[in-house]
């Protein structure tokens, strides 16, 4: 089976667009991706749209930019939604039926609270039977790791310091300011150990990607700017004793990562950078281990030593991550690939990971699923 390549990719600046629609945001990203690939809407043979809070957005996007009758499917997979859209587009090309497929992720979250809505019940159970809020859920996931390996509040907080620092070099991130360790630790405590500066930000956003078969890339002479998809893996949560009372973000990630490494035939040490799902600062350290970036219990050292900062051994979330770039759910998984592509093309500007040739993108959606993509400079 021939390889599948990214030849065009775009992410709109994440932020608040209360007067626009998901279709409009998505269409802007799609047009950017088409331009980047040097093709038009008429060249696209099939499309996948990821969006959690609205449906039929895929069709609405093409109603904005050109209705050509192509197959369009809308997908939803919690925070792995955008990545799932990419994976479906990748599979469509892999069938051999399509040479050019498009994936777009989009979300309009303006007006939604950062904590989401409580579950319905005869009486509210929040604060009665613990918390189902996301900051608390991921705090508990972090505390589980801390209980095993002694991770400190400060070590979790350093994730935000690092990622916010990275974001100062990313003009498309919504939060672009340095946050020293004391500022992060002294910010309003939401759910210990996650302070407000350790929570990702709900914003509007969109990102899109054009995928092509090897044959088409060569035909269009795009190999010099193409990014090869070395792996696309998706996993759901295997049974675990404490899941779903304690949502398991680890197992699905571990499975998806292992599948991705096997598919790509590489190991974590071959990676030059990683964009992982730092929805809360407490999550990032767990994923160092889940993604095999370090051995058991070594995440504490990873953050302390600067190994995952720009310039370190394996830079993580040089985009600023969800913590600073923002987290428009449906768009996030595609936006990760946008960041990797910039680096693999040497176009990441100030935050460029020098000589980057191989990158990994990861998302995890509660419910639960995880997607891992591995990209390589063609």
């Amino acid at each position: 089976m021939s390889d599948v390549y990214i030849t065009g990719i775009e992410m709109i600046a994440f932020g608040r667009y209360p007067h626009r629609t998901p279709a409009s945001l998505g269409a802007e990203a799609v047009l950017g991706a088409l331009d980047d690939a040097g093709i038009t809407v008429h060249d696209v043979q099939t499309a996948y749209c990821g969006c959690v809070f609205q449906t039929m957005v895929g069709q609405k996007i093409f109603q904005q930019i050109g209705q050509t009758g192509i197959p369009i499917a809308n997908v939803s997979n919690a925070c792995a939604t955008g990545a799932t859209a990419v994976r479906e587009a990748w599979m469509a090309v892999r069938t051999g039926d399509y040479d050019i497929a498009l994936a777009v992720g989009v979300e309009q979250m303006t007006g939604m609270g950062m904590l989401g809505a409580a579950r319905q019940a005869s009486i509210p159970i929040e604060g009665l039977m613990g918390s189902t809020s996301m900051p608390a859920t991921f705090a508990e996931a972090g505390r589980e790791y801390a209980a095993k390996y002694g991770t400190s509040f400060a070590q979790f907080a350093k994730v935000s310091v690092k990622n916010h620092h990275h974001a100062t070099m990313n003009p498309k991130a919504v939060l672009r300011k340095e946050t020293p360790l004391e500022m992060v630790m002294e910010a309003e405590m939401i759910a210990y150990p996650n302070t407000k500066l350790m929570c990702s930000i709900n914003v509007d956003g969109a990102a899109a990607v054009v995928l092509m078969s090897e044959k088409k890339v060569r035909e269009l002479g795009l190999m010099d700017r193409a990014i090869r998809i070395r792996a696309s893996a998706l996993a759901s949560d295997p049974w675990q004793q404490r899941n779903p009372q304690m949502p398991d973000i680890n197992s699905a990630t571990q499975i998806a990562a292992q599948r991705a490494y096997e598919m790509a035939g590489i190991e974590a040490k071959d990676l030059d950078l990683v964009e992982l799902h730092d929805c809360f600062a407490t999550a990032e350290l767990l994923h160092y281990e889940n993604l095999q970036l370090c051995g058991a219990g070594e995440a504490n050292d990873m953050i302390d030593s600067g190994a995952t900062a720009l310039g370190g051994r394996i830079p993580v979330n040089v985009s600023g991550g969800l913590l600073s770039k923002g987290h428009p759910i449906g768009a996030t998984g595609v936006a990760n690939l946008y960041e990797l592509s910039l680096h693999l093309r040497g176009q990441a500007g100030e935050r460029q990971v020098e000589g980057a040739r191989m990158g990994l993108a990861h998302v995890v959606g509660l419910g639960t699923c995880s997607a891992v993509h591995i990209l390589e400079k063609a």
Partner: protein
Amino acid sequence: MTDTPASPPLPAASYIHLDGPEPRLSFLKCKSCGTMFLEPERLACARCGSREGFDAHEPKYEGTLHSYSIVHRSFPGTAVPFISAVVDIDDGPSLKGNLRGVPFDADRIDGAMRVRIVFDDALGRRDADGNAYISHFFEPLAAD
């Protein structure tokens, strides 16, 4: 002004049973592999896939704290702070609930403490019909 006699309280979760002198817990236990579940009914076992069915199983009322968060901001209208805890019940599944009787200070919480499972009124919460509820809570065993 007349008072209608209070109805007996209802269980705040389906695995809490109020049919005896004291509230008790009952979980589904897979006949095939023994895995326990919190739902009142299931089609099959999430672990082994068996459709052999489930037995009702009453666990011990003690367990070990597995993880927790001290929640200082929650959904609008939720009183804070409180401690959200995940406890591995002895001879039972893991359960989420409020951990009470400990300070809101991570430095003074033993992350692997032994706890007991107790039952109490659901913090005064009432449903639309005015019914009271009984919920479970965790308390440190060491406080005895």
